[in-house]
């Protein structure tokens, strides 16, 4: 019987010729990623269970990317970075992206030049940028949006500290093989739609628990016409439907991206669906008939079309995070913000220092994206997870009051961006930019 991409990757990682959905198996991990929020707890459990002198199973397969609480004066957040640094030194971890500007007390002064720092920013974007994502591999990360890397044709999923500590010591983890749901996007996207609209359509369709315990595969012309960053946005939000992993079959564009970045030169194996692979669900979307969407408060599946909620007053706009802070996202926002001025507080947070450097080099009609945003009246913060998940009170862009914010991020449950009575509306960077200009929910089609 045929297997899906996810089943085939897991079978290989388990050293088996075949696995079935529902089976519990032990798999070998190719890359384990952790960050400053879950790393310290993971390291503590690793030492507790394997002993104070224990060594990680493979220091070249552990990737540590501080990204969450960097630009804060909180002393415990700084202490957590120190814990990571100490562990990296002690274990000889090869891939660590240090916030080298962070020393001692108070709010750290960010790097001056985003090209001259070892710091990267948001782990899910840093992983592919730094060549840690490869087709066919198994990636575990102590963050629910680890599923982003499924865009590269690998199995990538979020785990907790205990699981991560277990992997650190053994390189293995038990998993239940998920059945695969398949989402087929027919047609090419019109210029006012983005991958964010597609994934909001999916989550609105199946609900924020519609893929619990399942893999979600995206396919069709609409998907393969997307660049890698947009494919990452699709896979990034599968967790918002409860999905275990998202996956897209690799094509030439995937291989070009991976080969250009795969610094270690590690070989990999492209995995495709067997012709007789079985899917537990299939849904076809005609992207030519989709409209820009918004997920209304307080759940990512609370779908509305922009036309239905247009005009709803807002206090703030936010473009950033692993979901909406890539250069493709800012290119899209700049198409609307160029030569216009925002009516509400608008925050721009590049996911990584690489994206931030690109804000200065990418231009539209002779102006850099950075200049376009500054002239539009937006505030630009340093690369980090920032206010996507609220974070410490002094986090850039955090909703410290019960405001209404339209955001290119991923989650809008109560309190997600700070204040628990705040209202968060999730939308594409195009829709967020249009709404920033209008001061209310606005349709990007009116601004392009």
């Amino acid at each position, binding site marked *: 019987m045929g297997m899906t991409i996810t089943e085939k990757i897991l079978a290989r990682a388990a050293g088996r010729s075949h696995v079935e959905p529902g089976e519990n198996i032990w798999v070998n991990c190719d890359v384990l990623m952790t960050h400053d929020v879950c790393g310290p707890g993971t390291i503590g459990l690793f030492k507790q*269970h394997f002993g104070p002198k224990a060594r990680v199973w493979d220091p070249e397969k552990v990737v540590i990317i501080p990204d969450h609480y960097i630009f804060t004066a909180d002393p415990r957040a700084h202490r957590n970075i120190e814990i990571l640094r100490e562990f990296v030194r002690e274990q000889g971890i090869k891939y660590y992206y240090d916030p080298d500007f962070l020393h001692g007390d108070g709010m750290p002064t960010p790097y001056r030049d985003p090209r001259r720092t070892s710091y990267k920013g948001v782990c899910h974007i840093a992983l592919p940028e730094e060549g840690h994502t490869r087709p066919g591999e198994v990636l575990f990360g102590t963050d629910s949006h680890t599923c982003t890397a499924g865009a590269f044709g690998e199995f990538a999923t979020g785990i907790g500290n205990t699981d991560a500590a277990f992997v650190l010591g053994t390189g293995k983890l038990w998993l239940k093989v998920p059945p695969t749901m398949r989402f087929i996007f027919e047609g090419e996207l019109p210029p006012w739609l983005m991958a964010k609209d597609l994934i909001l359509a999916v989550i609105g369709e199946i609900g924020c*628990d519609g893929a619990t315990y399942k893999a979600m595969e995206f396919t069709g012309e609409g998907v393969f016409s997307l660049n890698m960053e947009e494919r990452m946005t699709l896979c990034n939000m599968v967790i918002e439907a409860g999905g275990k992993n998202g996956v897209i079959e690799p094509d030439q564009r995937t291989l070009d991206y991976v080969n250009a970045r795969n610094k270690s030169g590690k070989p990999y194996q492209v995995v495709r669906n067997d012709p007789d692979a079985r899917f537990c669900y299939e849904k076809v979307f005609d992207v030519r008939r989709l409209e820009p969407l918004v997920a209304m408060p307080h759940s990512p599946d609370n779908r509305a079309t922009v036309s239905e909620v247009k005009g709803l007053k807002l206090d703030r706009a936010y473009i950033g995070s692993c979901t909406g802070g890539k250069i493709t996202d800012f290119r899209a926002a700049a198409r609307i913000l160029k030569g216009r001025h925002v009516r509400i507080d608008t925050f721009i947070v590049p996911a990584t220092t690489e994206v931030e450097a690109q804000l200065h080099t990418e231009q539209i009609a002779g102006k850099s994206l950075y200049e376009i945003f500054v002239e539009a009246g937006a505030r630009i913060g340093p690369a980090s997870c920032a206010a996507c*998940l609220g974070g410490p009170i002094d986090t850039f862009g955090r909703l410290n009051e019960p405001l209404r914010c339209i955001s290119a991020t991923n989650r809008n449950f109560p309190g997600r961006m700070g204040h628990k009575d705040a209202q968060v509306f999730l939308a594409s960077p195009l829709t967020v930019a249009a709404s920033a200009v209008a001061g209310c929910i606005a349709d990007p089609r009116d601004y392009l």
Partner: protein
Amino acid sequence: MLEVIRGPAYVLGDNIDTDQIIPAQYLIYNPAIPEEYRMLGKYALAGVPVAQAGLPQGYVPFHRSEDEFKASFPIIIAGRNFGCGSSREHAPIALNAAGVRVVVAEFFARIFYRNAVNGGYLIPFESVERLVEQIRTGDEVEIDVSHARLVNHSTGRTHALKPLGDIAPILAAGGLFAYARLAGLLPSAT
């Protein structure tokens, strides 16, 4: 694993995500440090909007006072998709530190469920029927673990729970590490 757990229930609705269970501002605490593990208990469920806190009436604080590290509700009753959202293990840890022993939900989000089991923090039971409208916050509830049964002493009604299945031996061992040692997957002592 305790065979019978008894105490007042705290009732919540659907989609109680990890930001409501432990808001992100408290993720500065490192659960590997016992003092900070306790702090997570103090802020457990701090993100639940007050009108939905302690159903059906709402506005029931989970902790009796702001300086309490532990709450007095060993059993949580919830609806669909409990623990959705982030992978933060701080979520089941916060509930454990606050004294929660069992969460009964219609079903759980995957990562929270794994974390609860693999860390051995609490027993995640799935209910056969929706209980959120049948149990009130403060009802005296008893969970019979081996028979997968919930008795509400305040109403006299018994509700079936789904058997724990695959996770029972992991919970019985006390979590993933203890289970792996028992199963011979890890050396028995460190």
